């Protein structure tokens, strides 16, 4: 069943948005806030019933949602403003409740110098529901409706950021962790980007020519594909471990390598392992991209008087490019994630925070590492998606 809202320009699919109401109700019976007197102390959680929170926004949220749910069930059309109101409230109400809870705790005098707060389960579930709703809204809306939604989303993000820099939310546990280690954070963030960026760069330098070789010499095809896919089956932790011994030996044997910083642990094995992992998507997509160039196009290039080299660079490679970029995109997103593990062998990167946090049972520190990794992966994915579209703009229709 598909129910539509005919909006300002294009219809928006309403049902998936409204379905996000179900998890959003979690705010009623799960906790909104967690308070800890200091970093390692046991936390104490509060739900909305234990705090004197005004219930109006919650009621409003649920009412709008219910009205829309009913509309989706029985009515074919509804107004965009109603949908926008619902989407904004599902996005912002959990956060507002969290903020109010923090304000109340501060008024009670519970937010001492060392105390910190973090969102409770209800707020997290609310935020996830909001994420799902907004994803669907942005995906299915077009034209002016989309502009409205994007503007509303940016407004909400601005609102949240504005609250984060002021009391009492400057006591947000992740922010506290960040403030203590701001310098280290920047350093590890840069290291993370450097490591994953270089690994993807190296994988392109090796993988694209390897893919070309596999394409030109079918004899090598299976060997190259087998090698790269076997690498993928080695668990990343094991890969780092496997590299320690040979690299340590190399470093021992050659002072020149040692002076370049090659050793069993640190950035060198991390870079090698990450590059190896990034190879498969690059190689496979280069091969696929080149293989699907139509025969007629290839032959017409030949008959036109192109040399082999001209044919490759003027016909085959440009046509394969979108598929190749698609492979680099996969490799890059993977690399951002895999680089996390590099923190374990002293290569640095945001994984450092995660493993430190795990070691100290400090969840806040773990989250401080996880959030930028997720954002980075999404950003990388989007950038390559754009490149892919640019490279394929001639259309794939062959005439």
């Amino acid at each position, binding site marked *: 069943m598909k129910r539509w809202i005919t909006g300002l320009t294009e219809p928006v699919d309403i049902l998936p948005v409204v379905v996000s109401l179900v998890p959003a109700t979690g705010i009623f019976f799960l906790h909104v806030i967690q308070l800890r007197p200091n970093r390692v102390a046991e936390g104490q959680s509060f739900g909305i019933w234990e705090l004197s929170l005004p219930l109006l926004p919650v009621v409003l949220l649920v009412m709008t949602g219910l009205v829309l749910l009913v509309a989706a069930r029985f009515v074919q059309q509804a107004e965009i403003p109603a949908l926008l109101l619902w989407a904004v409230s599902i996005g912002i109400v959990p956060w507002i409740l969290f903020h109010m809870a923090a304000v109340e705790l501060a008024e009670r005098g519970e937010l001492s110098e060392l105390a910190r707060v973090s969102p409770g389960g209800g707020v997290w579930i609310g935020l996830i529901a909001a994420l799902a709703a907004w994803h669907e809204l942005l995906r299915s809306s077009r034209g002016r409706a989309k502009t409205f939604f994007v503007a509303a989303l940016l407004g909400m993000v601005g609102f949240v950021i504005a609250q984060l820099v002021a009391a009492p939310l400057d006591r947000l546990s992740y922010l506290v962790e960040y403030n203590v280690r701001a310098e280290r954070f920047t350093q590890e963030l840069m290291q993370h980007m450097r490591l994953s960026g270089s690994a993807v760069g190296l994988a392109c330098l090796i993988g694209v020519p390897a893919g070309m070789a596999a394409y030109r010499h079918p004899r090598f095809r299976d060997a190259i594909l087998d090698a790269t896919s076997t690498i993928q089956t080695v668990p990343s932790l094991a890969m780092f471990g496997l590299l320690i011994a040979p690299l340590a030996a190399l470093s021992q044997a050659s002072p020149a390598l040692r002076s370049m910083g090659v050793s069993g642990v640190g950035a060198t094995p991390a870079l090698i392992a990450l590059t190896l992992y990034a190879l498969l998507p690059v190689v496979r997509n280069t091969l696929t991209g080149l293989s699907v160039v139509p025969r007629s196009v290839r032959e017409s290039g030949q*008959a*036109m*008087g192109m040399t082999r080299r*001209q044919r490759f660079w003027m016909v085959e490679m*440009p*046509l394969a490019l979108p598929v190749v970029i698609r492979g680099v995109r996969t490799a890059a997103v993977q690399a951002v994630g895999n680089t996390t593990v590099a923190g374990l062998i002293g290569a640095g990167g945001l994984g450092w925070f995660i493993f430190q946090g795990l070691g100290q049972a400090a969840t806040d520190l773990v989250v401080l590492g996880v959030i930028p990794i997720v954002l980075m992966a999404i950003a990388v994915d989007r950038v390559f998606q754009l490149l892919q579209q640019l490279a394929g703009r001639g259309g794939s*229709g*062959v*005439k």
Partner: protein
Amino acid sequence: MIGFHEVSKRYGEKVAVSGLDMTVENGSVCVLIGPSGCGKSTTLRMINRLLEPDEGMIEVDDQYLRDYDPAHLRLKIGYVIQSVGLLPHMRVWQNISLVPRLLGWDKPRRRERAEELLEMVGLEPGEYRDKYPAQLSGGEAQRVGVARALAADPPYLLMDEPFGAVDPLTRASLQQSFREIQSRLKKTVVLVTHDLDEAIYLADRIALMKDGVLQQFGSPAEVLTHPANDFVREFVGSDRMLRMLTTVELEALDGWSGTDGSRPTLRDALSQLLAGENQTVRVGLRDGNEQELSFDGLRELVQA
């Protein structure tokens, strides 16, 4: 001039072309025709060295093919194929000016040349120059394919079923455009088709092949009126004299309303005779004479 000297080509056991001896004169259109698998495409593709003959020699411009660098040779031989093979990532003007680009022309000159050619093949440059191949219809793409083959003004043109993949109306219009262009440019053309009417309409010389062997090589009128053997007779069909009618063009024909640029033929004259009540119809011949054409007169003209 393109000369074949005892050329043979085999694919494994199968003989594709056998002992081909034939000369295509400069400025003429030679149409290779025959049933599927007769070796006509193979013959064509040996001319620009997409295939190499197993035996014999082919010469182009009094020089044997084996003495040319293949890529260099192809730059002076335009090539049009049925699937067109336009490069999907390049705009129309870039596709057309591909060979000039390989020859090192600068960009303004290439653009100018592309627009000139679009005009020649009957496409409005302003509208088509910046399109991508995916945005063209089959007929338009085929015109661009012809423009591309002519871009560097090559003396030779090879066409492999160039008008095969379009609907009959579009095909007729493409054939007519091609004839007009050819009458101006006088390229040396080798064209492969399986459509006898197309061969008769376009060819100066028809090369009829069967099982890799040349059966007859002559003008359309020769092939139609004097079939060399039973196979040719069967191939051109029992209605071959009707086909002859289309080979004789007229300057004028009473009551004829054709599309611009095309000429009436004896076929149209016969149609007028059959449709009208009169015993004759007034026609203007290509030699400038006018006459009242009767059924008897028609027979004389066809057999002449």
